């Protein structure tokens, strides 16, 4: 039988902040798809106390706010898949949500949970990096904003202080900014990524040079990462065969993945380079 730590069930955000301020070792639970597995004790020490966020409606909902789409931290993958707003403004996130687990996990797992769990294999994380998302964090001390690019400083670590909660995710919507996503796993459902990649660029058509290129990857380093050298190789260039060849080569040299139970370093480098090559080819229409 798994351990059953005591649980606090705050009714609103203020109460949740108070519990976390009083007990900084308490671990928040949302949909439980990661934390409930931790209770088996097979993944390290289970938490001493749990704070149940599931009923905090302030952390739900998807809305357009000015030139951004804002998603509450408790937004489930199913809600993302079914959201008309996400489908219209951020289809790449819908695509990513559809690759996570299967129906049972998508009905429970949340965008905020994916972010806070901070797995290097978190499938939405490259999308958030490539889309230049920022995260709104809250505590008894008030709210602050941290960009996705500064949120995962080291393996399984986040910018959250122990008494802080992730409240919302804010993703800028820039006209003409294109985003692509691809996950490579052992099978289509229920698999953890061998490589997961998202690419963003400001598009001017198949012959126009790319601007503001952002290339993000998961499962190839100890955190989700941006590939800065490859971004530089793509920046200002049109999506031609020469650009694709060069960028794929730079990416294969830039990545330093490891061998583990899911894949090998060599496979990850090769497949990442091929996925990027294909993105460029598809954009160039050749």
């Amino acid at each position, binding site marked *: *039988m*798994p351990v*059953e*730590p*005591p*649980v606090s*069930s705050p009714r609103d955000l203020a109460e949740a902040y108070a519990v976390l301020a009083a007990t900084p070792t308490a671990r928040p*639970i949302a*949909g*439980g*798809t990661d934390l*409930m*597995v931790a*209770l*088996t004790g097979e993944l390290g020490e289970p938490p001493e106390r*749990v704070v*149940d966020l*599931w009923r905090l409606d302030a952390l739900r909902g998807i809305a357009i706010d000015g030139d951004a789409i804002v998603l509450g931290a408790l937004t489930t993958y*199913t809600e993302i898949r079914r959201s008309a707003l996400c489908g219209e403004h951020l289809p790449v996130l819908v695509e990513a949500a559809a690759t996570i*687990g*299967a*129906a*049972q*996990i998508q*009905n*429970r797992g949340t965008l905020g949970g994916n972010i806070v769990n901070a797995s290097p294999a978190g499938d939405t994380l490259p999308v958030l990096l490539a889309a230049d998302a920022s995260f709104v964090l809250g505590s008894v001390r008030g709210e602050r904003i941290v960009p996705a690019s500064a949120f995962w400083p080291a393996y399984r670590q986040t910018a959250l202080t122990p008494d802080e909660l992730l409240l919302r995710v804010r993703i800028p919507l820039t006209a003409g900014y294109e985003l692509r996503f691809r996950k490579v796993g052992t099978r*289509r*459902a*229920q698999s953890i990524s061998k490589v997961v990649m998202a690419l963003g660029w400001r598009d001017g058509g198949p012959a126009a040079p790319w601007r503001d290129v952002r290339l993000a990857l998961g499962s190839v380093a100890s955190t989700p990462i941006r590939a800065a050298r490859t971004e530089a190789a793509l920046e200002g260039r049109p999506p031609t065969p020469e650009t694709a060849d060069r960028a794929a080569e730079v990416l294969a040299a830039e990545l330093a993945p490891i061998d583990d139970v899911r894949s090998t370093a060599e496979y990850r480098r090769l497949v990442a380079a091929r996925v990027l090559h294909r993105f460029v080819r598809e954009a160039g229409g050749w």
Partner: protein
Amino acid sequence: MTVYRFSVNTVPVQVNVPGMRRLLDVLREELALTGTKEGCGEGECGACTVLIDGRPVDSCLVPVCQVDGASVSTVEGLATAGLTADAPPVLDGLQAAFLQAGGAQCGICTPGMLMAARAYLDEGGGPDEDAIREAIAGNLCRCTGYTKIIEAIALAARAGG
């Protein structure tokens, strides 16, 4: 220990348990509903699938504190009692289709398969094979190779769910 109230197969229930107890354990140990099976215990296999407010979830990943006030459906709720005391229960259309198509071997995955398929059909899912495969992608079966399970769900879909 805390008292939690919810419904299981439309019957109101009340349990007095630690809030982090898995819904799976509450169903099996507190409520003696052992139709729901534990497979992996970590959300990979779908054997413990039940519906919460109509949506399939892995009951091994749901703490009971999050079910308070909700409506839970398990495999025990599929068949209905016969019209007289000695009449056999009337199977749900999906159960009948699993029997007809031979959609079970060892049976451990079957309750979860039935509940994932029930949610799919209840949302208007049809006999399309790709859609059925996606609906049960979170349910592993180590015996059948899935083909007969998919045939059974398509059969039930064609019969009107």
